[in-house]
């Protein structure tokens, strides 16, 4: 009644059908895992976002100044521009000049 070709193609079709459902099942399980992970990521993201907002509040200059006055008796004086070096070369240059002056003074002293 049925010829060989039909049987073979039917069989292949059946195998593919079973194989597809097996893959689909595996995919479903994977998606379940992805879902769980996504859910966790989303939760962590939310927590991170809240933490960032909280951090920005806790590290705001106004809050820090208030806490400083609450817990410390030290007075912080702003450093004047003439008191800071902005680059390493500036520092080295200053050191070099200072050494030169000191050497000059030492020489003057020995002369006397």
């Amino acid at each position, binding site marked *: 009644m049925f010829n060989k070709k039909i049987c073979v193609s039917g069989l292949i079709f059946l195998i593919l059908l079973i194989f597809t459902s097996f893959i689909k099942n595996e995919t479903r399980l994977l998606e379940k895992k992805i879902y769980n992970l*996504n859910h966790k990521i989303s939760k962590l993201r939310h927590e991170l*976002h809240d933490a960032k907002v909280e951090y920005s509040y806790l590290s705001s200059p106004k809050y820090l100044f208030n806490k400083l006055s609450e817990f410390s008796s030290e007075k912080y004086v702003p450093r004047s*521009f003439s008191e800071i070096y902005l680059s390493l070369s500036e520092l080295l240059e200053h050191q070099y000049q200072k050494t030169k002056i000191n050497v000059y003074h030492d020489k003057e002293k020995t002369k006397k």
Partner: protein
Amino acid sequence: MIKKKQKSRIFNQNQQSFYFKDFYSSSESHKSKLNIIEDRIFILFSVFVFLILIFAIKVFLISIEQPKKLSYHQTYSEFAPIRRDIVDRNGNLISSSIQMYNAAIRSNLVKDKKKLILKLQLQFPKINTEILSNNLNNKKYFYFKKRLTNKEYKKLWLMGEKGIVFEPVQNRIYPHSNLFSHLIGQTDDDNYGISGIEYFFDKELIKAELNDIPLTLTVDLNIQHVINKELKKSINTFNANGAGALLMDADNGEVISLVSLPDFDLNKREKINADEFTNKITKGIFELGSIFKTFTVALALDENIVTPSTIIKNIPNTVKCSRHEISDMKKFPNEMSVEEILIKSSNVGTLKIARMIGQNKFESFIEKLNLNSRADLELGELGTPHSLKWNKCKLETVSYGHGITTTPLQAATAYAAMVNGGYYVKPTLKKDTLLKKKTRVIKESTSKSINSILRKVVTHKDGTARLANIFGYEVSGKTGTSQYYSNKNKNINTFISYFVSNEKKYILLIMLDDPKIARDLIYDYNGFKIKGFRNEAGWNVVYVAGKVIERIGPILAINKNNSTNINVVKKFN
């Protein structure tokens, strides 16, 4: 199958032709039965094939389907902010969205309304019970409280009342509360910007594709705080009604700080209609007085009418112009150089220079500097100066800053053009890498001359801004003492300064609204300690500007990209 059936039919016909009539007649019914069975099998087979085909197509379609549709994306609630965050130039958070709850009441689910009112009154003593009872009786669904805090949410949740519904909503939060009140603005209940940057950049802030990228502003949180603090201090010291400050990069127009006092808490939703809460820097329209003298001198220099050393002869004590009598606050010599006129801030001297320039040139210069048209910045709250009618005596009064109104923002922008080499750069609040459009308004040589004169305003013994001479920053600038356009009894004192910190040029504008003499304040003036006895700009706003520059100067210097904190060390001297 069909072929076989046809064959059998042909065979039967053949049989008839071979005279198997008996057989034919006896097996006729049997054969017809067989045919029916065959047909049924065929139909059944066709149905099965059809079903398998549908099933196969379905399986095939599912197999090629995109995994997106199969995923569980929609099933879990992911927190995705509706609006983008706003950060300062260093990435510090200024505005963000968080999840909050609104508490609503479904009246038909409340069994004992009186009991509920009593319970709510115990937990929230400030509520209006009359309104609540009215709402409970007349409305099916109404909001009891919007934007609940965590504490309030827990209180209501612990009541266990069925009728109370918690609606999750997203809300804007401002971690620095008052600090950026005039700049950032607010959003409404539906998360649409209604003022400030939230309003101006509304479309950009709600763009879903940019959700993870914050909107970066040019402002600096730390500098904003320092200036805010100094201004608040100055309001107390000089008993002023309010204050304003603007710090701007003179080369690219980036606004680093914008403060207007009094301010308000952005996290509290209150209706603020009082005039004092107007943004003084961008919306406030003022006659800024003597700071306009700089523009007059700059134009005269640019047009080669005078040089800084040109002597203006026969400067009278008073000049009658139409109905007005124009004079100086102090008595000045009747011969002064152009430079001296600006340093000493002589009204009559400036007026004489303006007459040399002529009205047409002056008018077009004011237009070029955008001083009399609507202010331009990425904010909703911008002021438009009163239109200028060039009638009799206008040129003379405008030359020293009277009879012309403008916003402090516009004045500071024009000053930036005076000192940055002569380019007008549009001020901006949005940090981007795009090259800013620059328009030349004066020659580079004119800018250099103006720089040197303005420096002398701070360093010269007759200069009006000596209190701002802070070591290391090459401060220069011009003071302005004027009256309110609408109330001549109130003073507006302004100082626009220009200073350099680590090779970068900055414009700092400080303004005090009706400051009084600070009799308890001891000034360090020319090495002498003197008590406050005057009320001009040189004795209040200049003093404040000096304090501000002293504080923010090192921060601005260290902020430069190529210097790292590791190199910043204390000097030994």
